[in-house]
């Protein structure tokens, strides 16, 4: 993965990427970078092209056009020794013993047999599955299989960890384990790309994000940058009575007695508060907060739903 181009390019570099399936264009024109050592959130609604982008990045799909580089060059399976990939559609050889499957994947990722075996046994001990080492995978519960899947993903201490909806189908215990593992990998210097719908996880873990919609980027940058692109600040207002309409703000959320208002350009906190007070509405509380990624997500993809419904 480390090539000559690595000095000039970020670890992951995607430029002018387009992907067609027959007459259907999934990705129109996508460009973004992922820097070494950062945790990157890849966000978008179902069908927005996230998994397709990852598959094209990993050489599983051939892109229609564009450049998709990891470490300065197109990914090849021989680079798999430095990659950890947890796909959205995941599974392992169910009729084989746990340890055999782990050792097999370890070997495919370049570990020696003894090394893969030792690592696997340590990991099974850690996740309390040591007694299942010789059991066939289909004898394990769904949650236990998820733990094995996670182990297989990280057993080569990957430089780049790509997780496609990692918490999908995970129970809370395994979700916690996954988060611990991501933290560990980050601390060890790994770059993490995460596709997820869990916005609180993105806010907690990710340094930068991209929002994908209709095959193009709708927002891209640090979490703060993206929040700024979508207004940055919201006013959380407790009130009695009727919330007035105003040219100074948009009502992001209104549940009757509580509302979140996004100020329009040029409108500051004092002007909005003055507008509310002079309208005769009884204000019970007024605080300032950053717009959450979830609100941004709903705002971006809500438009899509409204368009579809219309």
């Amino acid at each position, binding site marked *: 993965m480390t090539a000559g181009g690595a000095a000039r390019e970020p670890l992951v570099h995607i430029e002018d990427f387009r992907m067609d399936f027959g007459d259907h264009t999934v990705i129109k024109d996508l460009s973004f970078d992922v820097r070494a050592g950062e945790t990157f959130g890849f966000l978008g609604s179902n069908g927005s092209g996230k998994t397709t982008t990852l598959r094209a990045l990993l050489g599983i799909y051939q892109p229609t056009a564009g450049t998709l580089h990891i470490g300065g060059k197109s990914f090849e*399976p021989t680079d798999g020794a430095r990659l950890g990939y947890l796909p959205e559609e995941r*599974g392992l*050889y169910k009729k084989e013993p746990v340890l055999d499957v782990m050792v*097999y994947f370890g070997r495919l990722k*370049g570990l020696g047999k003894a090394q893969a075996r030792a690592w696997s046994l340590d990991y099974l001990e850690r996740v309390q599955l040591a007694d299942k080492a010789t059991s066939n995978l289909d004898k394990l519960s769904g949650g236990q299989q998820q733990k094995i899947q996670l182990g297989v993903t990280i057993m080569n201490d990957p430089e780049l960890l790509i997780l496609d909806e990692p918490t999908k189908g995970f129970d809370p215990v395994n979700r916690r384990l996954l988060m611990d593992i991501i933290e560990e990998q980050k601390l060890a210097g790994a770059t993490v790309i995460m596709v997820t719908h869990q916005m609180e996880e993105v806010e907690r873990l990710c340094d930068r994000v991209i929002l994908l919609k209709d095959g193009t980027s709708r927002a891209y940058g640090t979490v703060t940058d993206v929040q700024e692109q979508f207004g940055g600040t919201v006013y959380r207002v407790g009130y009695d009575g009727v919330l007035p309409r105003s040219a100074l703000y948009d009502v992001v959320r209104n549940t009757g007695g509580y509302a979140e208002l996004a100020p329009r350009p040029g409108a500051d906190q004092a002007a909005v508060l003055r507008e509310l007070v002079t309208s005769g509405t009884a204000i019970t509380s007024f605080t300032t907060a950053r717009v959450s990624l979830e609100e941004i997500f709903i705002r971006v993809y809500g438009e899509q739903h409204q368009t579809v419904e219309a």
Partner: protein
Amino acid sequence: MGTAPAQRSPLRWHNLGTVVGFEFFRTTKKPRFWIATLAIPLVTAIVFALIFVSNSSTSASADAQKNAALAFVYTDGSGIIPEAAAQAAGGARAADPAQAVADVKSGRVDAYFAYPADPAAESVKVYGADRGVFANGTYEAVAKQLLMVAAQADIGSPQLTAAASGNVRVDTETYRGGAASGGFGAAVPPLMFLVLFYVMVILLSNQMLNSTLEEKENRVTEMILTTLNPTTLIMGKIISLLLVGLVQISVFLAPIIIGFVFFRDRLSLPDVDLSDVVFEPGPLLVGALLLLGGFLLFTAVLGAIGAVMPNAKEAGVVFGPLMALIFVPFYAISLILSDPTSPIVQAFTYFPLSAPVTAMLRNGFGTLGPVESVIVIAELFIVGILMLRFSVHLFRYGSIQYTGKLSLTKTLRRGRREMAGS
């Protein structure tokens, strides 16, 4: 857990070995593999044991029967049966055919033979007390033997008698290109490749089909494809299948070889004279290449089917006709051997799916010329490699289409675009 891999070998070949090892051992480590594999030699051993025991007892009873005289009567419309010979065999002339039949029915005599006036034109009627299906054959044998003795006595020459009865040995020597060809003995070694091909396809094709289906059914493809080139994966599977097949064939052959070498007489095995077997390098080389090319082609085709079909049930629909195409030349075997230039044999020889069996048969019996051999071998390898590439392409796209059958049209269109873009 925190230690990075100390050394990473060049992954491509390393991974081919890893796939071969994993696929081979996971098949051969399963008890059901050994149950299935050992079942055939076990059944063979049981049959041999039964033959062994049976031969011991029949040998004793045959000795007893040899000494027991057959009491029979006969009438001779032809007048050629020597009375002395008949008496020596335990026979006596009967005066009344109806009485003779009645004597058989009542058990006073074992049998009655009615020789017609012209034994060449009419049949000899044999009436006997029922001794069971096999022992009843004794009556016919004795009746014929008496006619043989009569003929010998009339001809007066053992050589002419042997010639008349067809009891002569013929040693044939044939020549090809000015040199002596091996005859039937030379056909045996190259035909062994056909047997190997047949056994391997029968035993392993289902495994190959399921092997590529398994990646899809278990949703393991994406993880595999980020560590492994699909060509390496499929080649690894083919090589491991070949090894599994060799293990199975060795296990099947073991009791036969042991039985032949150590217990041939007691098992009444045919006395194969290996000195008649001729090992001609040309047909052997052609046979080996046809076997390899044919195996490559069929495993690639099966890999493609596995990549396209969503599950084993749907794959089975295509699998059946494919197997029929492989072995359809056996239905025309007499034509293949007698008239290799006929259009149907030529079609079987060059149609890729029927080519291996047809060409191996013709190679064994010496009717596949050098030019034809080269063409068929080249065809099998070229089509096999193309099919393997196609199979890899289908695997790349088909095996991540988890729920439905892959559209070949779309996949081919994508393949052409990729090739144009590459």
